[in-house]
């Protein structure tokens, strides 16, 4: 047994026929590279579209207090069992399917700052509010849990408020008064424009929920709550969970109606789900077509290159190579060329991905499992079609293999 000799012969064949080796690997390089880049672009686009849909607030749940019913008799507005901050804290502590829950304490008032004044809506919220709304800051920072506990007099203002109070200067660090209570501006929201109902979403002042409730508004009831599910597909489950937690909090017996309503963004959610579904189908077809085309390319090149070598196989058989020697030889060649081609293909794919991300609007997200799949399928096709014609040729009588033109 001289396996090392046969491996040596295989490596010699690869090195001696650089052009043929390169062309053979090229099939694998293109197969692997194209599949990874195509699927990477698909996944990058899917990710971006999902992100943009999520920015519309697709995961958002709004929890309103409602009147309760007793045996079909509405007990009217007087029966409102309104929410307190304690309800919010309980949900925040016990919910597992939400990414964030915020109390909303609505108020309004006159805001004096800079050299002018402005009347706006004031919302007392929790730090997770930004994330729930998928809003972002243009400058400064948002308030923290510590500010909420301390009822800190800090505020984050929307663009419209900024334009009216501080048209030419940066308001971060400035003092404003809301209904005569002094606040420090710590941040400015990024511009959001109008909401679907035509309301200016930038005409808003945010402050910690406790500050607004205890220092501005007074009383113990918050207006409503907002929450975001951890993902679009968990909205239903999150809604169930919040319902159960709130029923417990409000001690509602089984069979009694809820004294609250949870609303979700059903239309946006449906759009998001169907977009995700279509994108997944699209991605699947891209991957399948790329793999098929790549695989056929590899198959052709391997078939041609190995069939062309029938005479060489004949020579090897004539000087005493066993069928298994030929098989190990060609298998080694196919594996080595597929490995080298695969590694080069993967490197090229990562390079192309980086170039696309850097210089174009396309986003390519290359996931390891796609890399493995492209590599696996191309390698398997390369090895099979490098091996199969060699196996056929090695089965010939040496004299028939030698006569092959």
């Amino acid at each position: 047994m001289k396996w090392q000799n046969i491996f040596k012969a295989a490596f010699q064949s690869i090195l001696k026929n650089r052009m043929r080796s390169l062309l053979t690997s090229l099939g694998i390089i293109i197969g692997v590279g194209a599949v990874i880049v195509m699927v990477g672009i698909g996944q990058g686009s899917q990710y971006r579209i999902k992100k943009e849909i999520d920015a519309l607030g697709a995961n958002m749940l709004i929890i309103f207090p409602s009147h309760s019913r007793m045996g079909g008799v509405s007990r009217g507005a007087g029966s409102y069992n309104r929410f307190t901050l304690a309800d919010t804290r309980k949900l925040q502590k016990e919910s597992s399917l939400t990414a964030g829950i915020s109390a909303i304490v609505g108020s309004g008032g006159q805001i004096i700052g800079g050299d002018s004044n402005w009347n706006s809506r004031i919302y007392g919220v929790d730090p997770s509010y930004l994330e729930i709304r998928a809003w972002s800051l243009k400058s400064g920072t948002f308030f923290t849990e510590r500010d909420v506990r301390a009822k800190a007099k800090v505020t984050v203002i929307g663009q419209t408020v900024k334009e009216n109070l501080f048209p030419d200067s940066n308001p971060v660090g400035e003092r404003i008064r809301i209904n005569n209570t002094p606040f420090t501006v710590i941040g400015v929201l990024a511009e959001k424009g109008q909401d679907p109902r035509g309301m200016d979403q930038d005409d808003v002042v945010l402050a910690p929920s406790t500050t607004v409730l205890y220092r501005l508004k007074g009383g113990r009831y918050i207006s409503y709550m907002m929450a975001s599910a951890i993902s679009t597909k968990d909205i239903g489950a999150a809604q169930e969970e919040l319902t159960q937690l709130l029923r417990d909090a409000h001690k509602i017996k089984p069979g009694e109606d809820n004294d609250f309503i949870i609303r979700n963004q059903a239309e946006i959610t449906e759009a998001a789900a169907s977009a995700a579904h279509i994108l997944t189908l699209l991605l699947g077809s891209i991957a399948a077509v790329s793999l098929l085309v790549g695989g056929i390319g590899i198959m052709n090149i391997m078939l041609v290159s190995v069939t062309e070598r029938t005479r060489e196989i004949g020579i090897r058989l004539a000087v005493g190579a066993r069928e298994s020697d030929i098989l190990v030889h060609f298998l080694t060649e196919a594996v080595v060329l597929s490995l080298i081609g695969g590694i080069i293909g993967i490197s090229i794919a990562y390079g192309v991905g980086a170039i696309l991300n850097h210089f174009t609007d396309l986003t390519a997200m290359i996931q390891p499992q796609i890399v493995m799949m492209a590599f696996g399928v191309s390698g398997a096709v390369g090895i099979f079609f490098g091996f199969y014609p060699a196996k056929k040729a090695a089965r010939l009588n040496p004299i028939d293999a030698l006569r092959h033109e």
Partner: protein
Amino acid sequence: MTTVIETRGLKKNYRMGTVTVHALRGINLSVETGEFVSIMGASGSGKSTLMNMLGCLDTPSEGEYLLDGENVNNLTRNQYADIRNQKVGFVFQGFNLLAKTTALENVELPLFYDRSNRVPHTRQAAMDALERVGLADRVHHEPNQMSGGEQQRVAIARALVNNPAIILADEPTGNLDSHTSVEILALFQELNEQGITVVLVTHEPDLALYTRRVIQMSDGRIVGDKSVESRLIAREVLPTLPTLENGENGEVQS
């Protein structure tokens, strides 16, 4: 003297569509150690088919074949491969060297596949074989850098390297000019002097005169078998031959 080749009633039939072609119709042949035999015959007389049977490149349809005292009928494919590797050195008309592979590596090829360890699997063994055919200074040349005569010498060195019981040459000079052909026969004569058994197929009666025994074939049968009475010695003939125009290349352009 021992018998290297012995066949009894060797037959080979090919089926071509509905017609069966009888390429060999019962060959009884025996070759002793140290003989230099030529097999003559017209195209289609079955001489190449017989040669392929003797070299275990193809298997007979019927009959018995003893090679170097061993019965080589109905063996497995691996056993035939080992016989081709260890017992037979085959020289082809078209050289059949690996392209883009140096003379030395071509000669090493049978050593790669040798499982018997009768001969050392060293580069030196291949060098020695190349030296025996007079190519010690061309070991690192590739086939396309060599003349036809040189390529055939590499092929002969490859046939020699595993120290086979017999060398079988199927029209080894068919692609060579007459001067180079005689050079190749000089080499075979030299090897034969050293005790190597050689069987050579040719259709040129002139060349058969350099061997010791001529077997005449026709239509799949042996029709004549006689010793050469006045054997030519290639070394003596060579100086008298004119050098041909294409003698530089040595390969007949077809």
